[in-house]
């Protein structure tokens, strides 16, 4: 098994280099010069030349590439044009906001989607099953941004229960500052014992959380359902029933374990969708996370930032997939022996 891990890590590094290369090509080969962006309008020839030299743009392409790889290896992702801070620092400041949102969404999706899928499978072809499947089909057709806006219209515009956007109301932020221990505001406000701040943070995270959860729920519940239906036809499930084991145990322990491997794959994929979906959700809700950072970096041609964040997100996604693959070993004893 250790050999497998090493193999996968090597593969991952190779893939990351590929990702780096593509990102490099995108930013350096295609038209659109970062120089103009940096210098604003009508720079002089000398200014342009100076900046070009500084950025290394006057070197031949392959040398730029090597320099690029070298810098990345050292952890130097460059400086953002817009914030003038190192990109890594920008990412650090905004990372936890996204982590809080996507992790909570992932938990909600699993806690809601899997039992629904199991229920749907156990009562296959019953009205409940048809209802759940219809919801799944419909849910996939609704774009996430639309869902977010509908929620805003309903809960902010019409009912006035929840705030429109942002992570905290600025008024609350001023009066209730709490130390950022983990960067996860829900936890930090509780740690500081500040209930007013906690309620505010919770209220703000509700809608983006609901959007991300509902947008990705159908896939998980549908996959769980289909996998469970197949698992329930297995002979060993029949054996469990033949010895009178209680139904709930059979479903959630014996049958579900069989679905775990493909289900883990889907969960890994879902986390990927969440990372991608966070981009849209953060845009809709003005959430100060990485997603919003990427969009702004790209629309404003902030190349270092765009490159940095893309690399970061791709690495995160690859790492998640690697973890999922390693979890297979935990779940399926048949893999361990080989």
């Amino acid at each position, binding site marked *: 098994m250790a050999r497998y891990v090493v193999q996968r890590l090597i593969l991952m590094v190779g893939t990351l280099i590929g990702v780096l290369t593509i990102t490099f090509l995108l930013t350096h080969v295609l038209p659109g010069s970062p120089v103009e962006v940096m210098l604003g309008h009508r720079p002089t020839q000398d200014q342009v030349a100076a900046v070009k030299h500084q950025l290394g743009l006057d070197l031949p392409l392959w040398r730029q590439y090597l320099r690029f790889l070298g810098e990345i290896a050292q952890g130097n992702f460059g400086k953002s044009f817009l914030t003038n801070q190192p990109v890594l620092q920008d990412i650090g400041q905004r990372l936890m906001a996204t982590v809080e949102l996507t992790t909570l969404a992932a938990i909600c999706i699993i806690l809601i989607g899997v039992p629904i899928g199991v229920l749907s499978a156990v009562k296959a072809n019953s009205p409940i099953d048809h209802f759940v499947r219809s919801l799944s089909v419909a849910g996939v057709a609704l774009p996430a941004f639309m869902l977010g806006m509908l929620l805003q219209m309903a809960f902010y515009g019409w009912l006035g229960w929840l705030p429109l956007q942002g992570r905290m109301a600025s008024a609350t932020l001023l009066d209730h500052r709490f130390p950022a221990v983990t960067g996860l505001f829900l936890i930090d406000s509780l740690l500081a014992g500040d209930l007013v701040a906690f309620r505010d943070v919770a209220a703000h995270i509700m809608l983006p959380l609901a959007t991300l959860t509902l947008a990705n729920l159908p896939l998980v519940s549908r996959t769980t359902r289909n996998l469970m239906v197949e698992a329930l036809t*297995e*002979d*060993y499930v*029949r*054996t*469990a*029933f*033949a*010895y*009178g*084991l*209680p139904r709930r145990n059979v479903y959630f322990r*014996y049958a579900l*374990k*069989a679905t775990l491997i493909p289900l883990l794959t889907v969960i890994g994929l879902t986390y990927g969708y969440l990372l991608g979906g966070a981009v849209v959700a953060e845009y809709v809700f003005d959430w100060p996370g990485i997603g919003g950072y990427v969009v702004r970096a790209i629309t404003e041609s902030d190349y270092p930032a765009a490159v940095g964040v893309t690399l970061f997100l791709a690495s995160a996604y690859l790492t998640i997939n690697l973890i999922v693959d390693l979890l297979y070993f935990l*779940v*399926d*004893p*048949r893999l361990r*022996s080989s």
Partner: protein
Amino acid sequence: MGVATTAPTGQPGGVFVPQAGNAVMTDNLLEIRDLHVEFPGLERTVKAVRGCTLFVAKGEVMGLVGESGSGKSITALACLGLVPPPGRVTGSIRLDGHEVVGALDADNERLRGGVAAMIFQNPGKALNPFFTIGRQLTDVIVNVRRIQQAAARGIAIAALTEVRIADPDRAMHKYPHQLSGGQLQRVMIAMALACKPKLVIADEPTTALDVTIQAQVIVLLRDLAREHGLTVLFITHDLGVVGSVCDRLAVMYAGRVMESGSVDGLLASPAHPYTASLLRAVPMLGRGRTELMQIPGTVPNMAAPPPGCAFHPRCPSAGPSCASEVPAMRETNGGRSIACHHPLPAPAGSSEDVGTLAS
């Protein structure tokens, strides 16, 4: 699960009703009466079991023989209320006095394992690959015998020892894929034994195993049955096996029992043409170079079985009434029952003498 009817409906020909005062009736552990199982589908309904009647007395090993599609496995599942949806079960199955057909699943759950334990055909697939066999055994034992985990473990190891698994302690920690087919079937038998059931239903327990292993498992089953005084319903399509294990035999065709009686009697002088054809078709060593007799025709389509006696299109003794009237199950002297309009004459004289070699 099904609608319980105490009186049979629909089938012309009636049902085998034992005489009052017949000793067989009071000592029966399993009584199947006119069992019907059908699977309604979108376009047609498959009638897997069409009036099966069978009695298994306490302590005996009853063999249930039939080709694929004869309905024997479904009958076995029905005994424990395990017929999968959309199956509809009608008729009566009395297991140790409890009526299974039409009962609540919760009631049937109490019978499973403790009263009747089932052994399935393909042990590699019948055991969960994600759990150790120790875990699967103890889960079942804890649930059926209602004891603590620690005690269950001891019982599991004892059961594994009884089925002659080497090093049972280590085996408990193994996963199914680490054991051979023969060992896995022993594990299944151990699982059944550990529940201390009254009836063991073995559904083709050796079909998926190599021939040499088959013999071992069969011998094991036979010895264990004798030792523990178990009643066994042994289902198989292999006639060659029943001789060494079973006391009595029932032959099923197209969802009905065609003939039943003592093993020796049936094998020596079958009264039903189908049983006779089956015996002729089985190649047995030591019988001399006789030609293998095929049964002409094919197994009937269970969605549209032939009218009257289902075997009549292929029956060498078929007569005019066979195509229209379903033969009723009749009991004859010597514990033989037969459902046929033209039973074969016994070699030693009249049909009344069939089965003088009582079990």
